[in-house]
């Protein structure tokens, strides 16, 4: 009978993405709830060091799928390799992060297994052997509590939501022969943004700008640097060509969940809220006291962002020094 949890980690260029720690930590909690083992999968090329590192987060068993065919993420190679080892593990739950890669893999793998999938979950609870997931729907206007029939239950959790927890445990390491199968897709090129920046969906702090910036994001960048965060944007700011599409937060952009979201010159349209309403603390800076964003914020200041932002940056720097 299906038992325990299989947690699939995500790495890029030999480093785990933050979501990997979240998935393994949440996987440990679910496995404990189900009184079953946690198997953690590390996939890639030459990933032994990663396998070693993830041991500190509570795996009972590590499955290391190490093969040149897995160097780049390719849906077919990853799906085939995972599907080949699943029967031996026979997990009750397959857990991934709902990133670009994780969502893609979860969808294809679930279809391969004819398994139910709960995408982009913000909470997972186990009671009396039943796993219940919470997922925002309709752009976060409603939350659904869902269960999945049959096994495995495939669950993808929203990045930046699940608590990371270290759990000391001895993990057995297995390195099965990788079976990437027939691979039709190929990666031609990786066009990554210049390094050194915090990535939007992993950021603890996001300073986001809208039409009210008038295209001048410099004061937002400065505050983001002071807070160690990232800069996001409303669709208007993207449509104006001030920011790239990848920065757009909202229903037709990225869904983010930082600890702190600072909305600067953003009115608070429903489609924007869809992308940031699960942020833990929301601060709104807007010159219009009637702006709808204030109704969704925890803290608000009515004022001109070009006066407020430099002052906030200075105050942050003062505290940090």
């Amino acid at each position, binding site marked *: 009978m299906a038992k325990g949890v299989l947690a699939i980690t995500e790495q890029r260029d030999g480093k785990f*993405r933050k979501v990997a720690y979240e998935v393994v930590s949440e996987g440990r909690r679910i496995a404990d709830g189900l009184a079953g083992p946690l198997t953690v999968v590390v996939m890639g090329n030459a990933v032994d060091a990663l396998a070693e590192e993830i041991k500190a987060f509570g795996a009972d068993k590590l499955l290391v799928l190490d093969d040149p065919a897995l160097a780049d993420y390719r*849906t*077919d190679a990853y799906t085939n390799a995972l599907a080949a080892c699943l029967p031996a593990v026979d997990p009750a739950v397959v857990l991934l992060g*709902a*990133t*670009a890669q994780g969502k*893609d893999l*979860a*969808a*294809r793998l679930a279809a*391969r297994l*004819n398994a*139910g*999938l*709960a*995408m982009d979950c913000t909470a997972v609870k186990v009671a009396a052997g039943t796993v219940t997931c919470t*997922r*925002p*729907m*309709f752009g976060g*206007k*409603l*939350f*659904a*509590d*869902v269960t*999945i029939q049959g096994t495995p239950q495939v669950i993808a959790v929203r990045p930046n939501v699940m608590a990371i927890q270290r759990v000391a445990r001895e993990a057995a390491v297995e390195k099965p022969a990788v079976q990437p199968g027939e691979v*039709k*897709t190929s*990666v*031609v090129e990786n066009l*990554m943004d210049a390094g050194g*920046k915090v990535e*939007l969906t992993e950021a603890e*702090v996001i300073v986001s700008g809208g039409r009210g910036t008038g295209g001048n994001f410099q004061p937002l960048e400065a505050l983001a640097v002071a807070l160690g965060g990232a800069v996001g944007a409303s669709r208007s700011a993207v449509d104006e060509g001030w920011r790239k*599409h*990848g920065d757009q937060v909202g*229903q*037709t*952009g990225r869904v983010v969940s930082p*600890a*702190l979201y600072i909305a600067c010159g953003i009115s608070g349209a*429903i*489609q924007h809220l869809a992308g940031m*309403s699960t942020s833990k*603390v929301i*601060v709104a800076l807007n010159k219009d006291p009637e702006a709808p964003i*204030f109704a*969704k914020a*925890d*803290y*608000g200041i*009515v*004022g001109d962002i070009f006066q407020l932002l430099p*002052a*906030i940056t*200075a*105050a*942050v720097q003062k*505290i940090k020094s």
Partner: protein
Amino acid sequence: PDTESLVQIAGDGKSIKKDDIKWVMNPYDELAVEEALRIKEAKGGSVTVVAVGPQKAQETLRTALAMGADKGVHVNDPVAEGGDALATAKILAAVVKGLPFDLIICGQRAVDEDNYQVGAAVAEFLGIPHISIVAKAEVLDGRIRCHRTVEGGTVVVEAPLPALFTTQRGLNEPRYASLPGIMKAKKKPIEVKTIAALGLDPATVGAAGRKLIIQALRLPPERKAVRMIPADTPAAAAEELVRILHTEVKLI
């Protein structure tokens, strides 16, 4: 539902009230239709649009036909209703199996349940490769090259045709249906299909085939009322905000 719609929970606590909602084409599907039309304009061929849904879904198909698609297929069957992404993908795959095709384009997600799943599942059921979240697509000789948006950048991926990809904003600016387009669309064919005609087992589709079971819908947890920080001077407001974030919320 239109993204502006108020979405309310129905009496059963598990579904939404459908009466007052304005239904529109999913914004990611507008990108899909537009991209299909552009590829047709550049390379020839024809564009077929497919929808699974009740009678109302026909309006969406008509919109796509008015934009320039050639024909529609509408799976309109009470048995198909209430399905999850997997069940819907099974139906779509069955429809496509009966059609000649080189390329399938889906939205990356539908702005209802936000499943991000149907495209990949259709490709899996058809045994063809898929590439998701695509902001730029080029049809080359027998292949498709896609710019796939990932966190922190773009990955360029290729797959041989037939293939499927899912859309991301930035792909194109969808056209509006013109008046002549709307007139022409009225005469374009929409083929209506049932689950039985597609040869599908009714137990595997629609509400009966659901594996993702909605136990309850609820409103998101309410935030406390906003605390407005007085802005007598920008500096004073900034100091106070940072003090709160530092000492009360312990974020900075």
